[in-house]
């Protein structure tokens, strides 16, 4: 399996091995933990809070051309919690995430059915402007994608396009966002340097800073650590733990340990776009209701 990509000697991209290997390894370890210790899920204090739904879907379907990518998804995502979306590759977890802030609109031939409510409003109603929606629901992508601009301009970009740059003190807002993304101390002396000069993990935190600078309500994260080395990944995980105090976080991950570590609730997508089970993370990992989920968690397939 390693021989498949002999040119890829970049250590940062190591965790990017095929999903198959990754999940089997992860589940093998997880199984050990399941037997020996309790799985440590997101902070117990947070888990104790009652769920208040911010994003809810009813019968959400997504088609790409003739292919159906999502089948009748019903889910209620709680505010100020970390919701993890897990499942094998091609199970529609990224598709689901992209439909929350209507990024799927950018894809030709993508059709959406059902309803997706944000604070009770169906975002696919005709009177909803996707641009306005995305100003409330930020997104961090799998591959860090800083703009080819200075670190400062990267963070200020969102404020500028949203016309907030004359309302707020831009310098202070940039500093706040970079502090919020735990990047300030590393970059405060080189704000004029290009965002592309940073390391992969720093770039991803820059993208998070860029997103939180505009103060959205929900943060969508599409496998934000899969292109990073383990140290950088754990920094992002710590960051998510802090971010959830202010934002609602929905994170797609193919790393089950990660889901178990950081999330309050977990949704399992299987079978090419079907939401099979959605529950408290501890329940999913310790005592799933659905046999297929149990099989997936324990690595019997996927």
């Amino acid at each position, binding site marked *: 399996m390693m021989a498949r990509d002999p040119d890829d000697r970049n250590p940062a991209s190591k965790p990017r091995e095929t999903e198959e290997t990754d999940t089997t390894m992860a589940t093998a370890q997880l199984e050990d933990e399941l037997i020996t210790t309790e799985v440590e899920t997101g902070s117990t204090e947070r888990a104790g809070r009652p769920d208040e739904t911010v994003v809810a879907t009813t019968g959400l379907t997504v088609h790409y051309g003739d292919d159906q990518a999502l089948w009748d998804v019903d889910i209620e995502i709680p505010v100020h919690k970390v919701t993890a979306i897990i499942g094998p590759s091609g199970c529609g977890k990224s598709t689901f995430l992209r439909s929350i802030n209507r990024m799927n609109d950018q894809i030709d031939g993508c059709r959406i059915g059902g309803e997706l*409510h*944000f*604070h*009770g*409003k*169906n975002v696919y*109603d005709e*009177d*909803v*402007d996707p*641009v*306005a*929606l995305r*100003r*409330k629901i930020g997104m961090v992508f799998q591959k860090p994608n800083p703009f080819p601009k200075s670190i400062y301009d990267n963070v200020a970009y969102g404020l500028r396009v*949203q*016309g907030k740059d004359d309302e707020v003190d831009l310098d202070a807002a940039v500093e706040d966002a970079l502090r919020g993304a735990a990047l300030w101390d590393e970059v405060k002396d080189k704000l004029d340097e290009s965002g592309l000069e940073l390391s992969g993990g720093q770039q991803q935190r820059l993208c998070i800073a860029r997103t939180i600078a505009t103060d959205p309500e929900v943060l969508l994260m599409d496998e934000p650590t899969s292109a990073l080395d383990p140290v950088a990944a754990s920094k992002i995980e710590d960051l998510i733990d802090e971010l959830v105090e202010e934002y609602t976080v929905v994170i797609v991950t193919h790393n089950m340990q990660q889901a178990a570590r950081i999330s309050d609730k977990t949704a399992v997508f299987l079978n090419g776009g079907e939401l099979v089970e959605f529950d408290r993370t501890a329940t999913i990992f310790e005592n799933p209701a659905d046999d297929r989920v149990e099989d997936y968690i324990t690595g019997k397939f996927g």
Partner: protein
Amino acid sequence: MSTETEHDLFGDVDLKWEHAKNRLFLWVIFAASMFGVAMLALLLLDIGTDFYVGLTEFNISLTDFLTRDGSRREELSGFRGAIVASIMLMILTAVLAFFVGVGSAIYLEEYAPDNRVTRLIEANLANLAGVPSIVYGLLALAAVVNGIGTGPVLMAGAIALGLLVMSIIIVSSQEALRAVPDSVRNGSYATGATKWQTIRGVVLPAAIPGIMTGTILALARAIGETAPLLMVGAIFVNRMPSGPFDRFSGMPTQIYAWAAEPSPHFIHLAAIGIVVLLTFLFVMNGLAMYIRHRYETEI
């Protein structure tokens, strides 16, 4: 789900101005895109009208036009000498530029080591493509017409055009060679073929449609070039050239001579000449497209 909640939800985001800006921007860039199309239409329309007026109001017979040579007298003027000269130019240009061009491309793509000399050749190639065509005319004027002493003959024009299109042929041939997958080369090497056997037997046959397409397009560019021919003295010659070492005037230089005349009759002769020239270009481009589509699937 009520409209009231929605109002609260996005009430703080005012996108009216944003959307107005977007619409205006789209309108502006669409209009700009259409400007080029409109100018093309206008140009073709103008030439078409002048062509028609030339045939009807100036009673220019298309048969006479195509079978007579040029003349100082407007009513006797024809295009035959210019057409024949242009065809001869094209053939000579093709012979001069094709082999050297394809040879250079093979060297650069298949043989050239990654060193200073190769980089110099590549950089020089990019520069040659940007040299104004009139400068190639000056080169031929000094080196061939007066240097070798041939006088203002067709061969001198062909050399100027040959040097002019050589860089185009090289670049398009390089692209065609690059498109041949390495697996094809490796398959040949695995049977014990040498590099040259591989190139001649496998790589070139696979690349030849692309090379031909590029060459025809380069020749289409050559046939419309005026300035280099003027520089080697291809003007005020009305008769048909008898061979490569005869004086000549090609289609574009003949059109120039007519267009620069003040008489409206000559202007309309120029319009008809342009239609003939554009027909040549159209056929050549069509041929190039045909070759590209015909063989596209096979590689």
